[in-house]
């Protein structure tokens, strides 16, 4: 088990390192950030001064080495906009993102899990088709469009809820519904598949054959087994949630990490963009690692089987 965890941990570390490297090259090699920061009228001497200060006039390998070192010492650079520590700039936005993310998770779980279970139990019948139709709707609906429709209806027509902002429960409702619908749709499909898979297993058939009440079979035998892949799914969604929130946060003016990313990209604020990418990639890699380890712990076949993919 220790060996298994170490291998997975090593893999995660290498992935993080690769991520940092790719980030560095993509962001640095695709243009001179100083040229992009200023208009053409700014004199060349001022630009040179800025390059000097930011260390952009150094050879690339040196910049890279410096970059990696500073990252591992927790120094992500300063925001080009106001000179504040980029890490702090991002950290300020995390509570809003977590609040929205938490609400979305709860909403998706409350809708997606029961819907998926009901669809699986009533496989092929009207209920199943209805739920799956709803799930496709949630999946196919672009969240920026759903957001705009919700604003049109609830904010402009009914004047019930604010169309943008942050601070009260009312502000949370529309963005949470926008993101929650899509996730609930995906989750329902996933839950349905896993429950159907478990239902096909011999032990469930045996329990059914023993004429155990169907409710007891569901709660005792089906749910615990179907829950494992669902938890994996939720783990993967964690990082994607921050990514998916970019558009929704922009639509609703929600002051989270996603909106900060859009703003920083528009301002070409390198340091902040980097911190956000590391944050998201780190969350995803950590989630992957936890899921892998949990799987190895739950299922010895994976631990010793070599290929865990």
């Amino acid at each position, binding site marked *: 088990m220790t060996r298994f965890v170490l291998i997975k941990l090593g*893999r995660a570390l*290498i*992935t993080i390192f*690769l*991520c940092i490297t*790719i*980030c560095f090259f*993509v*962001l640095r090699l*695709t*243009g001179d*950030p100083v040229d*992009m920061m200023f208009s053409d009228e700014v004199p060349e001497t001022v630009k040179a001064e800025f390059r000097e200060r930011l260390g952009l006039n150094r050879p690339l390998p040196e910049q890279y080495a410096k970059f990696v070192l500073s990252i591992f010492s927790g120094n992500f650079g300063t925001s080009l906009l106001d000179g504040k520590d980029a890490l702090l700039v991002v950290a300020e936005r995390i509570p809003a993102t977590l609040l929205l993310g938490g609400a979305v998770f709860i909403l998706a779980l409350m809708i997606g899990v029961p819907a998926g279970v009901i669809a699986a139990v009533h496989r092929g019948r009207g209920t199943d088709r209805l739920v*799956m139709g709803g799930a*496709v*709707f949630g*999946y*196919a*609906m*672009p969240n*920026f*469009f759903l957001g*705009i*429709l919700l*604003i*049109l209806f609830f904010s*402009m027509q009914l004047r019930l809820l604010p169309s943008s902002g942050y601070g009260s429960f009312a502000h949370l409702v529309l963005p949470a519904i926008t993101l929650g619908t899509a996730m609930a749709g995906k989750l329902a499909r996933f839950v349905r*598949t896993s429950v159907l898979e478990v239902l096909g297993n011999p032990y469930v058939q045996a329990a059914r054959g023993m004429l155990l009440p169907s409710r007891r079979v569901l709660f005792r035998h089906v749910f615990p087994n179907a829950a494992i892949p669902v938890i994996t799914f939720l783990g993967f969604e964690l*990082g*994607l949630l*921050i*990514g*998916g929130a*970019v*558009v929704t946060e*922009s*639509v609703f003016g929600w002051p989270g990490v996603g909106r900060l*990313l*859009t703003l920083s*990209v*528009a301002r*070409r604020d390198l340091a902040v*963009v980097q911190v*956000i*990418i590391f944050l*998201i*990639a780190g969350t*995803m*890699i950590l989630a*992957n690692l936890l899921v892998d380890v949990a799987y190895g712990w739950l299922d010895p076949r994976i631990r010793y089987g070599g290929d865990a*993919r």
Partner: protein
Amino acid sequence: MTMSVTRIAAARRRMPLTILLACGFLVVLLVVTLGADWIAPYGYAEQDLLARMRPPLLFGGDWDHVLGTDNLGRDILSRLIYGARVSILIAVCGTLLGALFGTALGFTAAHFRGWTEEVLMMLVDLQAAIPNLILALAVLAFLGNNLVVFIVLVGLDGWERYARLARGLVLTAKESGYVQSMMMAGASAPRIYLGQILPNVAGALVVQLTLNFPGTIILETALSFLGLGVQPPLTSLGQMLGQGRAYLLNAWWISVFPGLAVFATTMSVCLIGDWLRDRLDASVR
């Protein structure tokens, strides 16, 4: 092959109404976008400042502008047609690009195994770790806007899924009798991979392509919506939606019609993809 042809024919006979509607919509969309120059009543950049923010036909407008006009007096219907052409072109090019790239890498990994496979699969994991929208946002902002770069970025969406799928399929195929016997008969690697394995795994890959396509359209429209994709004067559905946001209060039609168009397209492709998967291939989930 004859086997799968008869299966497709049998499936077509049992095509449900929703799938027929979805196919019908896509055919209409294709015809309209291909024939945009003949069908669109106005040019997509043609302004008529005297006819700004005209409402659609059933909401107080007239036949001159069936779906109304935007803040510069441009005809929404015409812009919708041209915008859909750009969006679909980008999504189709992008999807094919991603599928080719991913499949090629999947085949490479399955052929060489060992270190090559480890490295490629690590790249796959890495790509899966960073949401594509984030990556695209970062690259686009720093590369500047360029249609080719944009198509490549949109195309890279989901390549890792094709790579994973293709690798798995090829590994399974290599164990099967027909490939083993060809290997023993001394057939060359390209002949086995392209002539035998590819036709056999193509079905699953096409299903994956159909399942991926809606995501690709949404990625394109989302980026254009944020103002980082297709740039004016060229127009796309997402860009129209993003521009219409400022006028939601007085002119909802500017953003609602392109949104509906995107939704109808993704929904149709989703339904067809799900149906194809259920009918033709049970191994892809």
